């Protein structure tokens, strides 16, 4: 799964999600649930890089660089975030 995902790009599922940055944080509206959600700082970073058409491999590199963290930690966090959002159908594979 992880190996496959690394070369993929993801984007938000426009059918059920609208999003915007509010007060520097990513907030999305889940249109089916009629609820707003707030992503934490790291998830917000990953989200913004994802919707800018970066591959997951690239996002991991950017996260590692931006927060000056080990690549393995960046990969674990990025994949956890993206898999979670994919499972909830909030993100879809491009």
């Amino acid at each position: 799964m992880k190996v496959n995902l690394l070369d993929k790009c993801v984007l938000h599922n426009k059918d059920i999600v609208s999003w915007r940055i509010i007060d520097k944080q990513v907030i999305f509206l889940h249109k089916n649930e009629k609820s707003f959600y707030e992503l934490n700082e790291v998830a917000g970073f990953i989200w913004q890089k994802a919707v800018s058409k970066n591959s997951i491999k690239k996002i991991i590199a950017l996260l590692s660089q931006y927060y000056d963290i080990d690549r393995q930690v960046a990969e674990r966090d990025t994949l956890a975030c993206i898999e979670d959002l994919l499972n909830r159908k909030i993100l879809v594979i491009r």
Partner: protein
Amino acid sequence: MYRGFTKQKDIGYSMKDARFLCPPYFVIQWHLTERCNWRCKHCYQNGRKVKELSFRELKSILPQCLELFEALQIKPGFARINIGGGEPFLRNDFFKFLSLLTKYKRSVKSIIMTNGELITDAIAKDLKKMGMFSVQVSLEGLRQTNDAIRGNGAFDTAIRAIKLLRKNKVITRVSLTLTKMNLSEVDGLARYLKELGINSLGIRRYVGLGRGKLLKESMLSPLEQEDFYFKKENLKKELNEKGKFFFSDGCEDGISALGGWPSERMNCIKNCSVINGRHLNIFTNGDILTCRRFPVVLGNALKDTLLDVHFSSNKLWTFRNLNNAHPLCKKCPEFRFCLGGAKCVSYAYFRNDSVPDPQCWRIFKKLPPVNLFDGHQARQNS
């Protein structure tokens, strides 16, 4: 570290702009028809025919209103659907629509805005029975002045309706659009209404849209507007002994917000609902507008949802962003209270929504030329 994401309910927003996602109240103004049995001179209608939504379409849109209130976590009693037009009682299916609304009376308040002509004793009784509707009847002054603006016989018609509503114990209030024509009659009208048992008079600022453009010479100067606000406070104190009469503020009255007012007064002042993100308008054809008096089309309720428009419309976020206010406003010490005045008044007067309110006495001593800001780029409507 990624720790999942948080549902809004669990956040308890402290973020500045996130207040738009949980405002203290929200008003949807819903225009059911543009047809009207009167031709008032100050009206924002422009006389064009607009296709009305069918009952089935109205019914399909109503859940959107409730979803919006729910998503924004508006507390019961603070979610409002104002029903207007045109004259809403002209729709044959109006009561069918009201019956639909009554299913939500625990959470939603509703005001019907009418000229009163079609109100009968039976209708007033039915409204009382439904138990959720208050009625706002429009009057523009005492008999002669009112009829000069609204048409011959309009005053007696409205008073008859008010008496029927009062007789049937329907909560009734009166609304007036302030111009030079009726400025001197506010005092007399308020006293007369109090005698009739009405305890609320809403005084709205003139917005020169549609047919109302013809009254532009009657628009109050900034100093007259300022003077009126102070006189209104005194009149309010006099009439409101024992809490029996009050002047309700409109969302155009943000310009009256001054740091020097006592806090109880400041708490009553509403800022522009577009800037504050507490209002949407459903127009007769289903278009979702920022406001009926600042009619920027944001979508259509037959294909877009009110909730998505409230959250996603870039136009709305531009209007909400105080950094987009005009420099003359931003440098004013009262800006943090007034938020730049009313978008509807600025737009109707200057045809530009990102310029100061023309009746702001802190900037203008008299009404400025309408082309004063022609070189200033409008943010949205250019």
